[in-house]
C-alpha cells in the first residue's frame, strides 16, 4: 500500500531511454546486424525470464479462494452503521440519501414511532441501478449509510435489492466491537479535531 500512496513521480528512477539513430546506408545496417548478433541481447532476455522462474515470485491470486485486501475507501455494497455508544441505528430517516441519489436507486419510507422519533420503516437499495458514486455516504449527516468492502454482489436479475436489515451492522458485531468505520467520501478525515476552529462569537 505504501508504494502506491507515493504520488511523487519526479524522482523514482525514471530516465530517458538512449535510442540511437537508424542507419541509412548499407554499411551502417550491416554493422548494426553484426553488433546486434554478437551483443547477446537475446541471452539477456533468456536470463531475465529464467531468473524470475527460479525466484518463484508468483503474483497470482487464486481469486475465489484468495482475495486482494481492499482499501477502506473502496465503494462497494452499502452498509448501515450503528452508534458505538448505544448500539442504536444511526439513521435518522432524514431522506437526504434518497434525494441525492443520482440513479434513483434508494427508496425509503419513514414513520413516527411511539417515542415520537422518526424511524425508518422501509429502506431498499436497488444494486442493479446503483452506480456506487458514494453521494449517499457523503451526504449522510450521521455517517449512517456508508460503503462496505463486499463487492461480490452478482445476482440473477438486473433488479437486485438489499434492504435495511441486510445492511445494518448485526448486534453481535457491535458487542465484539467489530464495526468498521468507512474512511472514504463523507467520512471524518484523520486529525479533524486539530482543524476545528472555534466559532468567533465576538461579531
Amino acid at each position, binding site marked *: 500500500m505504501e508504494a502506491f500512496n507515493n504520488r511523487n513521480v519526479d524522482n523514482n528512477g525514471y530516465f530517458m531511454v538512449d535510442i540511437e539513430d537508424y542507419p541509412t546506408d548499407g554499411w551502417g545496417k550491416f554493422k548494426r546486424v553484426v553488433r546486434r548478433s554478437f551483443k547477446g541481447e537475446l541471452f539477456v*532476455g*533468456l536470463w*531475465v525470464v*529464467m531468473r524470475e*522462474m527460479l525466484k518463484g515470485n*508468483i503474483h497470482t491470486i487464486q481469486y475465489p479462494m484468495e482475495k486482494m485486501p481492499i482499501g477502506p475507501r473502496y465503494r462497494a455494497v452499502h452498509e448501515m452503521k450503528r452508534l458505538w455508544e448505544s448500539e442504536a441505528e444511526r439513521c435518522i430517516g432524514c431522506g437526504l440519501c434518497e434525494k441525492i441519489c443520482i440513479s434513483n436507486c434508494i427508496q425509503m419510507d419513514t414513520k413516527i414511532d411511539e417515542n415520537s422519533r422518526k424511524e425508518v420503516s422501509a429502506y431498499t437499495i436497488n444494486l442493479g441501478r446503483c452506480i456506487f458514486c458514494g453521494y449517499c455516504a457523503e451526504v449522510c449527516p450521521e455517517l449512517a449509510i456508508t460503503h462496505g468492502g463486499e463487492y461480490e454482489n452478482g445476482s440473477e436479475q438486473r433488479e437486485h435489492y438489499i434492504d435495511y436489515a441486510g445492511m445494518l451492522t448485526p448486534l453481535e458485531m457491535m458487542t465484539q466491537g467489530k464495526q468498521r468505520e468507512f474512511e472514504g467520501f463523507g467520512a471524518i478525515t484523520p486529525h479533524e479535531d486539530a482543524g476545528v476552529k472555534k466559532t468567533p462569537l465576538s461579531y
Partner: protein
Amino acid sequence: MEVAYLIETIIKVVVVLTIFSALAGIGTYFERKILAFMQRRLGPMNVGPYGLLQVAADGIKLFTKEDIIPTNVVANVFKIAPVITASTAFMAAAAIPFLPSFDIFGYTVHPIIADINVGILYILGIMGVGLYGPLLGGMASANKFSLLSAARGAAVFISYEVVTGLSILAPIMMVGSLSLIDFNNYQIENGWIVFNLYGVGFVAFILFWIAAFAETGRTPFHLIANDHEIIDGFGTEYSGMRWGLFFIGEYANMFFISFVIPLLFLGGYGDGSFLGALGLLAKVAFFFFFFLWTRAAWPDVRPDQLMWLCWKVLMPIAVVNILIAAIIMI
C-alpha cells in the same frame, strides 16, 4: 524370424505412438506451467493437484467437441489436413533411435523402428511433408487469416528448409552416413560433432537449431499460427479433435526435433550404457525446455525478417561452413 520382426515392429510403433501422443499432451502442461512461472503466474492449478489433470480435461474437451465443417470450405481437403500434420510428425519418428539398444528377457531390443540408411534425410523429408497440413488446411478453410497463414507457411518453409539441409551437410560429410545410429557411433569415437573440425560443427549446430525453431513453428519464428496477427492461422476454422491433431503434430514434432538435435550434434546416447540413455533424455529435456524458454523470452519476428535471416544470413553462413569443412577434410 520374419513374424517375430513384424510383431516387434508393430509393438514399437504402438509404443512410440502412445508415448508421444501422451507426451504431446503433457508437453502442453509443461509449456503452460513453465511459461506461467517465467511470467510470475501459477498456470493451471484447479484440475487435480497442481493442475496435473488439466491434460485429461483438455483431452475430454477436444474429443467431445462438435466437429464443425464450415460452409464454403473444401471439405475433403479441410478434413484431411490435420491428419497430414499429425501423421507425418509420427512417421518422421520411424528413423529416430530413442534409446540405445538394450536386452529384455534375453531379447535385444533396438528402440528404433527402422534403421534405414537415409535416416536423417528421411526425417527431414517427412517433416517437410508436414508442411502440407497447415498449407492445405489454410487454403481450404475459406478464411482470410487461414489463407495468409498458408502463404506464410509456404514462404517460411522454402526459407528454413534450405538452411536445415545445408547446415547438416557438414556433419554428414564428417560421418559419411545418413543413419542416426552411424552418427551416434561416429561421435563415440571422435567426440561430439559440436566440438569437431575447428568450430564447423558448432556453426552447423547453431544453424540447425535455429532452423529447428522454424521447422516446428516455435516462438521466434511462430509466424504460421501467430495469435496476435492472424488469429490462429490455419487453425482458425478448426474445432474439436481436428484442431487437436494439429496440436499433437506440433508438439510431437517438437519432441522429435529435440531428439534429432542431440543425436546429430551432441553425442546422442553415447556408448549405449544406462548413463548414456539418461544423458540423451536429459539433452532432449533441455532442448524441449529451450523451446518453451524462448517462447517466454523472445519476441516474434516478421515473415520478411525470417526470410531475410534465412536467405541473406544463415544460408551464406551454411555454404561457407560446408566449404570450410570440405577444405579441412581434404
